[in-house]
């Protein structure tokens, strides 16, 4: 299973990348896309929406099932990726190149407290 070492993760299978401007990009992990199967529909949060950590804020839907995506940290949505809403299959092809939305975290501690790659890998052992 592909779990890049330079990203942070949640137990609910989101990945988080801190960008140069201090915002964070958020997507779903390779494990999540494989479990869902072919994605056909994405529902992303409105830009400007303020989210609490662990708040359900997006939906990824495959032929098989719909699944919520949760805000990894508290903060404000600053961008959504319209390329993946037009072509959700990009998430299946490369989950880490296909960010879903960007947030400005309310504080830096939120991201620091997320799982690193080995810790995320360890959570998959139970599934």
């Amino acid at each position, binding site marked *: 299973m592909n779990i890049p070492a330079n990203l942070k993760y949640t137990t609910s299978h989101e990945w988080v990348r801190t960008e140069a401007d201090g915002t964070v990009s958020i997507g779903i992990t390779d494990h999540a896309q494989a479990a869902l199967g072919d994605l*056909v529909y994405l529902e992303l949060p409105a830009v400007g929406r303020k989210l609490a950590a662990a708040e359900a804020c997006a939906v990824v*839907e495959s*032929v098989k099932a719909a699944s919520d995506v949760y805000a990894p940290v508290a903060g404000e949505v600053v961008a959504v990726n319209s390329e993946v809403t037009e072509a959700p299959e990009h998430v299946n092809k490369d989950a880490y190149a296909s960010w879903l939305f960007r947030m400005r975290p309310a504080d830096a501690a939120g991201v620091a407290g997320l799982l690193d790659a080995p810790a995320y890998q360890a959570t998959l052992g139970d599934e």
Partner: protein
Amino acid sequence: MLKQTPLNPIHRAAGARMVDFGGWDMPVNYGSQIEEHHAVRRDAGMFDVSHMRVVDLEGAGARAFLHHALANNVDKLKDPGKALYSCLLKPDGTVIDDLIVYFLREDFFRLVVNAGTADKDIAWFRRLLAERAPTLALTPRADLAMIAVQGPNARAKVWRALPGSERVSSALKPFSAARMDSDAGEVFIARTGYTGEDGFEIVVPATKAAALWQALTAAGVRPAGLGARDTLRLEAGMNLYGQDMDETVSPLESGLAWTVDLASPRDFVGKAALLARPPARQLIGLVLVDKGGVPRTHQLVRTGHGDGEITSGTFSPTLNQSIALARLPAGVAPGDTVRVVVRDRELAARVVKPPFARNGAARVAPAP
């Protein structure tokens, strides 16, 4: 502990994603489910359907027994090998299962029933047999495996993979079967399926299933999982037992009136109940006009004639939009617009008569 078909090690070695399907450990997809779907519509794909149960009924009076037990009329089966789709009903007119019955000889009929309902069906048949035809032998054939090979090129690829099969099956009409003896033991080849495409369902001894699967793979047949099987059958407008009908509804409210013989004087289990209770609902197709999600089982459907619900919904790879079967009030008609409640939204959907797609092509107009 999940049950396994003889092909289970092959599925696992191929990296299939496995799920619990009616107590069986089955492949849902090997790679992309949508590509597996397209392979069947455009070329040839194969499904391990060994979890379905073959049940042989043998003895004098077999036809007369099925006359009573099945909602469809086995008198339609005149030529040996001919198959018939039928519901098995309870006395109250609700559906125990749907099945295919093959007429092989006057004293030999073969039934193929669903995996999750097989034990229940067999118990029901045994009860009816004890009452009406105790000399008939009912034999569940756990020693057999079944592979469905489906798609426009399916038959030609089967003939290449299975020596001798072309001779016995090239003249088979749809919904007919033939048998042959081969190195693989007795092979039963039926021109049937659950995808809306041409093809065969092939029954072989369980010990020979892996060799047949590998020969079919070598002939260019793509393995496909239960995920693609579901999108294909739904596009083809075929019901799934447990979702589109079950022991709470009648076949007349499940789009299956064409399989119920109410015209002849023949009596059968459930007939009186069906005649006493005219259908107030119908099973019909929906094509979502609004984008915003995929309809799922039990979602509410609002219509001008009252509420209904989705029984099966999916994303249709052939139409490239969401489709569903829904049980709606009787007054709703094709062409109407209804609203499907998906999460916190109501999505407009157009009512259509299934099928949505068959034989490689869409059968309904695309949404604007």
